[in-house]
């Protein structure tokens, strides 16, 4: 510790500037936690703002270039460096600012285009994304290609100046509201992984249709998407022909890390606090003596898991790195989340078993519980993640 007055570093100056700008430009209502779907702005051809504040906030951020602060300016980003980008995100988190837009374009397609797209594609698609003009969805899974994603069958046949796409995708989230879809398609039937390409398709094209999927938890954003002789221009191919699997793997790792972190935000209260409040204690001991060790074990695992994520990030920062860590986190995180909802349900008793009625919060807990069962299926099943850990981390042999 020193007592002399020091000059702020450029980075400290930048942080203060960001903080001041956000304070001045982020409407108070845009600093509240997300309460429902309505609080999210998705953009797109049919995108509408829920209110004036949402619009003002998006537009201010867009003007500033901070929709995606670290993308290059020529692609609609803010052109910030890694360190500066982090500061913007940190300051937004500090103030509790909502994201100005929720976008698969930013989260998924963007990284793929930046890494694998042509210069023309980047200049064309990325600015549309940051401007919120085009809303994207993802077309990977198919009814007969679940864990074995690479066995997909949706075909794109070369017709000289265009492809003709036929087939069906499932689990295309929000496809019914999306403008474009990025798809994995089969361009060679002879090779499995080596016969897949990454294609961008305008959903307004004739022959594209969608149908929503109802889940065990009720309504869902998932759709089935059908392609019936859909003409797609050849320039919509991203990366090389038959090399789409590389792009898919790159994006799946992204997705896995996101899903591993699921459940972080939905129930903020620590589980044991929920337990104390719903079950009560007697002489400082929880009123369900059998559930008590389960809750304690879960809590220990959860904290240990969170500490492990921190440790891994610290190791990455220090230049060490655990190979297939994302599989481990995806597996463990989703299993923890499922276990949490089993415990929540056990604590909730009859309330957790109700499906309707205002008194029972419209079955919110039961529905969330049902939804968690998908955590260990979507984004690569737990079984697939364990296979990856066994093979890539532990080096166990295939047969």
């Amino acid at each position, binding site marked *: 510790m020193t007592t002399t007055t020091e000059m702020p570093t450029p980075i400290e100056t930048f942080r203060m500037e960001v903080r001041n700008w956000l304070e001045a430009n982020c409407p108070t209502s845009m600093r509240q936690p997300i309460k429902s779907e309505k609080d999210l702005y998705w953009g797109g051809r049919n995108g509408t703002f829920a209110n004036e504040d949402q619009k003002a906030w998006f537009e201010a951020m867009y003007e500033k270039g901070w929709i995606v602060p670290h993308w290059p300016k020529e692609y609609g980003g803010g052109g910030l460096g890694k360190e500066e980008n982090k500061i913007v995100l940190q300051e937004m988190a500090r103030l509790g600012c909502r994201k100005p837009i929720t976008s698969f374009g930013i989260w998924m397609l963007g990284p793929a285009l930046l890494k694998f797209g042509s210069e023309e594609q980047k200049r064309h698609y990325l600015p549309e994304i940051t401007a919120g003009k085009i809303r994207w969805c993802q077309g990977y*899974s198919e*009814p*007969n290609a*679940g*864990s*074995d994603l690479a*066995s997909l069958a949706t075909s794109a046949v070369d017709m000289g100046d265009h492809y003709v796409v036929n087939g069906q995708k*499932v*689990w295309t989230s929000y496809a019914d509201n999306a403008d474009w879809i990025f798809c994995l398609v089969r361009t060679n039937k002879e090779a499995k992984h080596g016969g897949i390409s990454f294609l961008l398709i305008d959903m307004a094209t004739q022959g594209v249709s969608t149908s929503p*999927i*109802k*889940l*065990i938890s*009720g309504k869902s954003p998932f759709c089935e998407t059908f392609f019936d002789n859909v003409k797609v221009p050849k320039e919509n191919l991203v990366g090389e022909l038959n090399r789409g699997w590389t792009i898919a793997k790159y994006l799946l790792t992204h997705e896995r890390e996101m899903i591993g972190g699921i459940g972080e935000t939905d129930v903020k209260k620590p589980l044991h606090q929920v337990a104390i409040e*719903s*079950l009560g204690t007697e002489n400082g001991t929880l009123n*369900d*003596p*059998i*559930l008590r060790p389960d809750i304690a074990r879960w809590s220990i695992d959860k904290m240990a898991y969170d500490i492990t994520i921190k440790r891994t990030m610290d190791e990455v920062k220090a230049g060490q790195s655990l190979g297939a860590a994302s599989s481990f986190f995806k597996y463990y995180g989703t299993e923890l989340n*499922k276990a949490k909802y*089993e415990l929540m*349900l*056990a604590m*909730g*008793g*009859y*309330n*957790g*078993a*109700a*499906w*309707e*009625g205002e*008194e*029972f919060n419209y*079955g919110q807990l*039961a529905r969330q*519980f*049902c939804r968690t*069962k*998908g955590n*260990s*299926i*979507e984004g690569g*099943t*737990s*079984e697939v993640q*364990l296979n990856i850990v066994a093979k890539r981390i532990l080096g166990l042999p295939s047969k």
Partner: protein
Amino acid sequence: MALILNEEQQMLKTSAKEFLKERAPVEALRKLRDERSETGFDRQMWNEMAEMGWACLTISESYGGLDFGYVGLGQILEETGRTLTASPLISNVLLGTTAINLAASNTQKEALLPIIAEGKMLVTLALDESTRHNPIQINTTASKEGDSYVLNGKKVMVLDGHVTDKFVVAAKTENGVSLFLVDAKSDGISIQRVIMMDSRNSATVQFENVKISASSLLGEEGQGAATIEKILDIARIGLSAEMVGSMTEAFERTVAYLKERKQFGVPIGSFQALQHRAAQMFCEIELCKSLVLKSLQAIDANEENLPILASMTKAKVSETLQLVSNEGVQMFGGIGMTDDEEIGFFLKRARVAQQTFGDANYHIDRFAKLSGY
């Protein structure tokens, strides 16, 4: 006693299986749900069940019943567990009829059982008052006023409460807990239907100054606690039979799917990790079947260790059904998450059944207490 079904019981099981496959497959439950059926079960089907004698299996012949016993009833319940059939078998046969069998006077039996036996009157139990099963905690009161009692209180998780004809209500009287038979249409009763996760019926029932005659008392005043435990132990075992049916069906569907679904060019059932998980489930299910049969026999034989058997059974069956229903959805993968696929119905029924009459945690604790630790 040999742990096998006799010929009559086996025949009953087979005929139940055939009837339910025809009249009440899982699809029927989906229909009731999607059409938002007001009764929550199919009245016509219930009439047919009653015609086959399912309402009177546990009623003695002198009151127009078949006196077939709980092992028989258990077989029917197991089959309804396979088809997830919504019916008054739990509320009316396991709870209501058992309550009357155990606690009613001859006069009351003569008045009620022949009608119940024909399926023309529904009786259910109104017991729990808190969020989780806790039959000891009763705050509903029945105050004596002259020749009558006045009921006040609120009951939750009353199965089929919005369609029942009568409630057996547990209430505090001066000298303990007593049971009363109360007409559902009585003044002062308000009933709110609650549709559960499994699309079945429960209700919240409010009693506000409900005046009932002294003749509504079931059994002796203040002596209800032991009867309640006995009703519940029988219901726990009967429900466990239903749950064993559900786990067996969910498991068989899962194994079939493992054989059929191909990934990486082979049936996923050829993956050893899934094989071992399936084999482990098989073992647990076998244990559950044994416990249920043993416990059903113990009801019929009026064995003294019924409480400990009931808790063992409900605990083990609850945990196994949780495992099997979870593994079912997981092994069906994405398709298992969709409402179109029926495996999810088993998951939902599982969780409600687990909570009903005490979950595994409740019964593990009770089992340990009954064992002296």
